[in-house]
């Protein structure tokens, strides 16, 4: 056990050097690192949100809301399909829980109706199952003329998948625009999106920016009755009452179907109104949108129209003259930041469905810095206590164990840096715990050597036996902890995952440093000092 082949010595040395080199960048500023030669590793450890501050936002697609919205469109499609020539008489068209139903009046037309309605099943091209088409809806026709549309499971799953994808793209465009931090945006499960923004100092703004649907629509304002009257009585067919963003909100009676929507926009920018000097958002339509806008404004000079964002009226100007250039501006008592955010939202486009925050964790930069300081202090004091204790207990061998411990910590940092694993506060706790437990292997070996000496062995043979007898125990003991760490990694999120990672990494480095490296150091010493008696 005390003989080391040349190549083994080389490997041990290389591992230690690699550990030192990969750990080193963490102690220098990014600026100093730039001046280092390119062959040296320069990446630093990734700090978790709890250490550097930032926001963790878990969103879920509001499935029920999406289904409702989709059903409403489907309802309209069914209506127009059945009204096509020759008309098919129907009754009871509406959304019933999880389905859209319609009853065909004349059973002799049922076959024709079925053919037509089957067209509405909306085949989706399935990318997952080799391009095979899947219908979004299942259609169930019963003999008494009742036709029921329900979402097919596969169809809904696929819809959700593409909604998540689209949402991620929209969110990315939005956060790229504010550009202060680089958040990571990931799909989680089938209908969730995780946004992590390390270093984000204003999580509220990020939340507003990410979570807003930002569906912009233009509606004519109905002037046939006042909004107050409509609220009390019944609004005329095809109109709805929408509230404004003012405080207190003002109701507007607007046409239900929008003239134009945000999809027709090509650009939006913040400008300042020349007269009032207030920030406004100016926008430009694409060609089709511009043409539509020009026609509408020509027909409705003198009438008000409403600019609606997510069902709230942000402005309701009167059309003074036909707007043919395809551009316009929204003034809605914005602050500069508010106008800027709206422009960003309009440029990035609307989210395909409503998103709900289901988990939020945001940590201010101050707390993160405090945690790092506390973690550093605790690690140093803990390590110092262990180091002193080992020397008191094992003398020269304690010093060797301490050197191994130092190598161990360096290796943990090196591995974590190389893997770009995230260091969290519980992760630091994991390292401190590892410091405490790492010497366990040394203790096992040393106690074993003491025993072997008491049993009458010579110094060298006691050392030899101590190492080989302790190996099996060290492996058993560490594998059990490793199993717990791996499971923790599987189930944990964020901080807990960080703890599991350092614990697992610590186990591997511990077995190397406390067993292999310690043995190496002792072998070197034995070769030089040729001890006959051990002070252990």
């Amino acid at each position, binding site marked *: 056990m005390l003989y080391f082949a040349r190549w083994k010595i080389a490997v041990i040395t290389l591992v230690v050097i690699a550990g030192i080199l990969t750990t080193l960048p963490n102690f220098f500023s990014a600026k100093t690192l730039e001046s280092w030669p390119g062959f040296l590793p320069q990446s630093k450890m990734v700090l978790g949100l709890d250490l550097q501050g930032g926001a963790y936002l*878990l969103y879920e697609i509001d499935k029920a809301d999406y289904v409702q919205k989709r059903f409403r469109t489907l309802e309209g499609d069914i209506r127009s399909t059945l009204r096509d020539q020759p008309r098919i008489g129907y009754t009871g068209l509406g959304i019933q829980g999880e389905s859209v139903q319609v009853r065909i009046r004349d059973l002799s037309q049922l076959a024709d109706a079925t053919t037509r309605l089957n067209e509405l099943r909306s085949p989706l091209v399935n990318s997952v199952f080799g391009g095979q088409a899947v219908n979004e809806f299942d259609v169930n026709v019963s003999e008494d003329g009742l036709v029921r549309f329900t979402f097919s499971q596969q169809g809904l799953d696929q819809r959700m998948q593409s909604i998540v994808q689209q949402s991620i793209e929209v969110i990315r465009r939005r956060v790229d625009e504010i550009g202060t931090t680089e958040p990571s945006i990931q799909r989680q499960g089938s209908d969730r999106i995780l946004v992590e923004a390390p270093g984000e100092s204003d999580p509220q703004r990020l939340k507003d920016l990410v979570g807003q649907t930002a569906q912009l629509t233009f509606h004519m304002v109905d002037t046939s009755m006042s909004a107050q009257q409509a609220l009390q009585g019944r609004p005329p067919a095809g109109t709805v009452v929408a509230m404004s963003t003012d405080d207190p909100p003002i109701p507007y009676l607007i046409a239900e179907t929008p003239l134009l929507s945000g999809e027709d926009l090509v650009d939006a920018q913040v400008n300042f109104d020349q007269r009032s000097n207030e920030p406004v958002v100016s926008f430009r339509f694409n060609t089709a949108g511009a043409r539509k806008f020009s026609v509408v404004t020509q027909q409705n000079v003198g009438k008000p129209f409403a600019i609606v964002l997510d069902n709230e009226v942000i402005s309701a100007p009167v059309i003074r003259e036909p707007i043919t250039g395809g551009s316009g501006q929204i003034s809605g008592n914005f602050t500069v930041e508010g106008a800027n955010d709206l422009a960003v939202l309009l440029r990035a486009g609307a989210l395909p469905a409503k998103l709900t925050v289901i*988990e939020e964790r945001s940590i201010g930069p101050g707390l993160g810095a405090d945690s790092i300081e506390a973690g550093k202090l*605790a690690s140093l004091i*803990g390590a110092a206590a262990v180091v002193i204790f080992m020397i008191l207990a094992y003398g020269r061998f304690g010093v060797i164990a301490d050197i191994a411990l130092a190598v161990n910590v360096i290796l943990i940092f090196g591995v974590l840096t190389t893997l770009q694993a995230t260091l969290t506060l519980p992760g630091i706790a994991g390292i*401190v715990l590892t410091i*405490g437990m790492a010497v366990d292997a040394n203790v096992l070996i040393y106690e074993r050597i003491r025993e072997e000496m008491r049993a009458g062995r010579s110094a060298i043979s006691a050392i030899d036996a101590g190492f080989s007898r302790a*190996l099996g125990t060290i492996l058993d003991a560490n594998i*059990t902890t490793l199993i*717990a760490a791996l499971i923790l990694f599987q189930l944990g999120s964020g901080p807990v995952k960080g703890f599991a990672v350092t614990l697992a990494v610590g186990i591997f480095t511990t077995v190397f440093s406390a067993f292999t490296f310690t043995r190496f150091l002792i072998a070197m010493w034995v070769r030089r000092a040729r001890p006959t008696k051990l002070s252990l």
Partner: protein
Amino acid sequence: MALLRLVPDDTKIRFMWLRKVSFPLAIVLGLGSIALFFTVGLNYGIDFKGGTVIEMKTQGPADVAAIRSTMSDLNLGDVQVQQFGGEDEVLVRIEEQPGGELAQQAVVANVRDAFAEDQVDFRRIEVVGPRVSEELARAGVIGVGVSLIAIMFYIWFRFEWQFALGAILTTFNDVLITIGLFVVLRLDFSLSSIAAVLTIIGYSLNDTVVVYDRIRENLRRYKKMSLTDLLDQSINETLSRTTMTSLTTLLALFALYAFGGEVIRSFTLAMIFGIAIGTYSSIFLAAPFLILFNLRSNDKSDDETADKQETGAAPAA
């Protein structure tokens, strides 16, 4: 230099005799913990119960009473306000609001509005909705269960079934008592508590495995010795190591408890307690279990399999 010895070299403490005390004690503590768990219950944090936690730093010493009254004006149900770390730091816990995911989000906005921006620095805001908390709770229970089973299989594979069963019962008892501590001290039971429990499982088994390793070795060496004497001797032989390792680990953990900051204090406290319990149980419970399970009754086959495994795992010196 005289080296520090925690335990004299040749102790001959009759641990097996102590099982008459340690077994009933373990059963009482274990059952007591179960009873506490079902009657008083754990003080679940927002990870498992849902709700909102807000940590804020005020300018100058915090007026906890004023904050409490501001919060109660917001009508958010059960709200706890407490000092957290320094005297200008306050932790506010707000129970899960009825009305699903959106209702939780409204809480944060309301609280932000209730305090002047320049007076209070919101250092940490955590909101867990009902759906996520349910999932985290399930994942936590599954995690602890799966790791216990996985480790049991590993020990079964490396040792005999008596060892596996003994190790799992010992560890399970440790987990129970740790949970009992959480109940008694009203510690916040959160995701990091699950991490603490899993680490305790790992550590306690680590300790137990070291003792079992020695027992297995001595079983082969002293074929004639009575099981009770053999277990006593094995524990005495490993006693020095057991206490040494516990002490170094505890030293590190105490440093973390004292200086590691408020956020992980309850995590560290649970760990310190768990390490102490784990050490106790690997001495006073793990080995006596083997007597209970009649380890020696089929000595011969034991030795054969044990030998085979030993050569497979560690090359002889």
